[in-house]
C-alpha cells in the first residue's frame, strides 16, 4: 500500500468537510462537516504513524476523538439554546454583532 493513497483520501474528506462548513446554514450540519474534517486528520495521523513505525499517532488520534466528542456535546447544547431562544438553527440569523 502506498502512503499517498491514505493521505489523498484524507485530503478529499477534508475538502468535502470545508465545503460543508462554508455552504451549510443549519448549525447541526455544520457540526457534522467538522466531524468529517476531524476524521480526515485522524486518517493522516494513523498513516504517518504506520510509516514511521511509532505509536504516537495512535495516541493523538485517540485525543482527537475525545476532543471531538467534547466539541459535539457543547456544540449541540449551544444549538439547542439557540433554537430555544430564536426558534431557528440558521447560522446567518445570528447577526446582532453586525454594526
Amino acid at each position: 500500500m502506498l502512503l499517498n493513497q491514505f493521505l489523498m483520501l484524507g485530503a478529499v474528506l477534508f475538502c468535502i468537510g470545508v465545503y460543508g462548513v462554508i455552504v451549510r446554514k443549519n448549525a447541526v450540519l455544520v457540526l457534522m462537516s467538522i466531524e468529517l474534517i476531524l476524521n480526515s486528520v485522524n486518517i493522516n495521523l494513523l498513516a504517518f504513524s504506520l510509516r514511521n513505525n511509532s505509536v504516537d499517532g495512535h495516541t493523538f488520534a485517540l485525543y482527537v476523538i475525545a476532543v471531538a466528542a467534547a466539541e459535539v456535546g457543547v456544540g449541540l447544547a449551544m444549538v439547542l439554546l439557540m433554537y430555544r431562544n430564536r426558534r431557528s438553527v440558521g447560522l446567518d440569523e445570528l447577526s446582532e454583532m453586525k454594526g
Partner: protein
Amino acid sequence: MLASDVLVAQNVGFAIIAAIMVIGALRVVTTKNVVHAALWLVVVLAGAAAQYVLLAAEFVAITQIMVYIGAVMVLFLFGTMLTRARIGAEQDLNNKNGIIGLPIAVLLLATMLIALNDGFKSEKLPVDAPVVTTQQVSDQIFGPYLLPFWALSFVLLAAAIGAIVLARRD
C-alpha cells in the same frame, strides 16, 4: 518489485471503502434531509474505522466505532430531533451565497493533491508491520503523554458540565 510487495486484497479493500466514504461524505454535505445527513455520516465514520484497521490500528478503530457511531451519532440525532420536529426534506439548509464554497474547496483540494504528489510520490508503507497492540497505546498514554491525558480529562469534564448548564431550562 516482488509480487509479495503488492498487497492486492488490501488495495482492493482500500479502494472500495474509500469510494464508499467519498460518496457518503458528498451526500452528507449535499443532502436536503438532516436525518439522512446523520445516517450518511455513519457510513463515513464506519469506513474510517475500516481504514484504521487497514493501517494496523485496532484500538483506535474500536474506539472510533464506540465513541463516534455509538455516542456522537446519538447526540446528533437527538440534536436534530430536539431542534427540528420535521423529519422530511427541508429547503433552507444552505447559505444564499454558499456557491463560493465550491471553488474554495476545489482549489484547496488541488493544492493539497499537488503537494502530496510532490512530497510523498510512491512512498510505500511497510508491508509486514505488526498490529499495534492496546498495551503499546496505553503505555504511550499513561507514560510520556500523561499530562495531555489529564488535560483532556478536564476538557471532557468541563464540556459535560458546560453542556448541562447550557441546555438546562431554568
